[in-house]
């Protein structure tokens, strides 16, 4: 039994997005095992509907602030997979020239502000970006993604307070995957209804099924419209689940396999595919073609990353500060 698909074209597009993210990350896991990708690698597999549902509701003028589980957001914000893959390889052609890695993907031209790995640290940043837009009278929205774990950080509360107090255009997107690393929601939140916390700061809240990209899209559209129209912040909770461990370092001992299996039954990709088939918007050949295209994009990116050069060690110290800074307005006084 499946829900109907109100907009088949949108559905196919979102399915395509999710597939691209899924195939990319499956390759990432493989490359991690092959030691091509190192460091921390946090996979988004299972949660693709969140990024895929929210990002299409934003415009190019809007800002995106993401977490360290941001490969999907980066890709769907438009950063070329080549640049993402090269970054994970640590190559000079990466979207942060090899300085960031998996957790720190950036693209100024797409207003993609990272890629930050201190839980909650992106929230004050997003408030500031929104403050700048408000001050400069730019009608932009800043979408800030974070997890349920960040809701325990002071940064969330300070940022929610500031954004509501100053009526700043921030869309707070909480990807609630039920675990703060390995600690279950009920073990880290006194109030597990996360929308209640946000609502206490006097902002409108939405909550959607994060395993249903169309539901995410619908809720995000409303929330973004609210921010844009009302000027103040909004909070969107996406109840989701990651199928894989927190990171490649995580033995995943804190979850029952059965729980993971139960959630996998709700995998957003086959779920949407089935609905699109039912709606006659997708057949095997189309699906295979989408899959093949995603695979090809990944293969191309891996080949690109492999072939790319390393940043010369001689350039180690570049971009710490702006060249020739410190000149001030005169000499030492």
């Amino acid at each position, binding site marked *: 039994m499946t829900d109907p698909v109100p907009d088949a074209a949108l559905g196919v597009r979102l399915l395509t997005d999710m597939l691209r993210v899924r195939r990319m990350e499956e390759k990432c896991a493989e490359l991690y095992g092959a030691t091509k990708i190192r460091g921390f690698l946090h996979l988004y597999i299972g949660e693709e509907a969140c990024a895929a549902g929210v990002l299409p509701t934003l415009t190019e003028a809007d800002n995106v602030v993401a977490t360290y589980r941001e490969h999907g957001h980066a890709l769907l914000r438009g950063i070329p997979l080549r640049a993402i893959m090269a970054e994970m390889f640590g190559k000079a052609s*990466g979207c942060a020239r090899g300085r960031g890695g998996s957790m720190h993907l950036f693209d100024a031209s797409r207003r993609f502000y990272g890629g930050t790995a201190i839980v909650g640290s992106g929230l004050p940043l997003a408030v*500031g970006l929104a403050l700048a837009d408000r*001050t400069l009278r730019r009608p932009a929205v800043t979408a800030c993604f974070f997890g349920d774990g960040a809701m325990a950080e002071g940064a969330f509360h300070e940022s929610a307070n500031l954004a509501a107090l100053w009526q700043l255009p921030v869309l707070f997107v909480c990807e609630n995957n039920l675990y703060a690393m390995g600690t279950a929601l009920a073990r880290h939140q006194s109030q597990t209804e996360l929308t209640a916390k946000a609502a206490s700061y006097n902002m409108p809240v939405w909550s959607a099924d994060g395993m249903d990209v169309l539901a995410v899209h619908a809720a995000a559209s409303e929330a973004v419209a609210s921010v844009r129209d009302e000027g103040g912040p909004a909070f969107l909770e996406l109840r989701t689940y990651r199928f894989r461990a927190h990171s490649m370092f995580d033995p995943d001992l804190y979850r029952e396999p059965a729980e993971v299996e139960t959630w996998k039954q709700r995998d957003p990709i086959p779920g949407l595919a089935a609905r699109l088939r039912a709606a006659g918007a997708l057949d095997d050949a189309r699906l295979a073609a989408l899959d093949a295209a995603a695979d090809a994009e990944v293969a191309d990116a891996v080949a690109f990353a492999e072939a790319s050069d390393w940043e010369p060690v001689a350039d180690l110290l570049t971009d710490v500060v702006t060249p020739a800074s*410190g*000149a001030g307005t005169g000499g030492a006084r």
Partner: protein
Amino acid sequence: MRMSYREAVRAALHEALVADPRVFLMGEDVGRYGGSYAVSKGFYDEFGPERIRDAPLSELGFVGAGVGAALGGLRPVVEVMTVNFSLLALDQIVNMAAVYRHMSGGQFSVPVVIRMATGAGRQLGAQHSHSLENWYAHVPGLRVVAPATVADARGMLPAALAEPDPVVIFEHVGLYNVEEEVGDWACDLTHAAVRRPGSDVSIVTYGGSLPKALAAAATLASGGIDAEVLDLRVLRPLDREAIAASVRRTHRVVVVDEGWKTGSLAGEVVAGLAEECLYDLDAAPRRVCSAEVPIPYAKHLEDAALPSVDGIVAAVREVCGA
């Protein structure tokens, strides 16, 4: 013209607010209250709540908002009441502002200016009196400056606002009432400055310790020791050339730093000299720092904990073998 350090900071801020609509001042009680050190008194009425933005007691939040606003195209001047409070915002300064340019492969600069009061001497106790400049000076990606003269108080803010990267300005609480004649205040944020030339020993210092170092040099001069006083001005990046040049002239060095000695900037200065100028040294360097104790409240104890003119004089005499 003659003005106080406080008036110099105020004049610099006022000028910047008038000159550039992207500039705004944000912090706790900077607006209606007028600033905890009265630096922004009257600005709220003149520039309005958007330009003079009173922030809730959310150092992490509003300093981070300053970082974000800088990324978003504004020129925020964020005021943190004291360096002790800045620890609540350390994440945004150290993990975000300082690294964004590098971590993004050069795509994002963060032109935020963060001002904070530092130092002891006002009997404010162990949570409002510390000198943690070295914590920030440790971090690549930040530019850390300490105006020690009224001219620098006037000049460093516009220079900082001209920077494409984050600048942390430390204003020593003991300096706000200092009055000096100020001529041309335009300055860079690169070079140290010789505040008193001398030939026998270099006293290297910064910020609130500069007046003490100059007083010590005057005392020493009457005793036949001609001390050079070098004001670091910029704590990151250190002007190592100026430090080395001075020591190559005098062959002796005493570093005065209100921070604690362990892990101090003074230690960094001395270590740099050991690396670069060992064979120019004619005596082991000395550091005059704060006693290794949280700054106590009682006046006599606070005084005893801090670098003193007498302590500087004694250290100089020791390295001079006098």
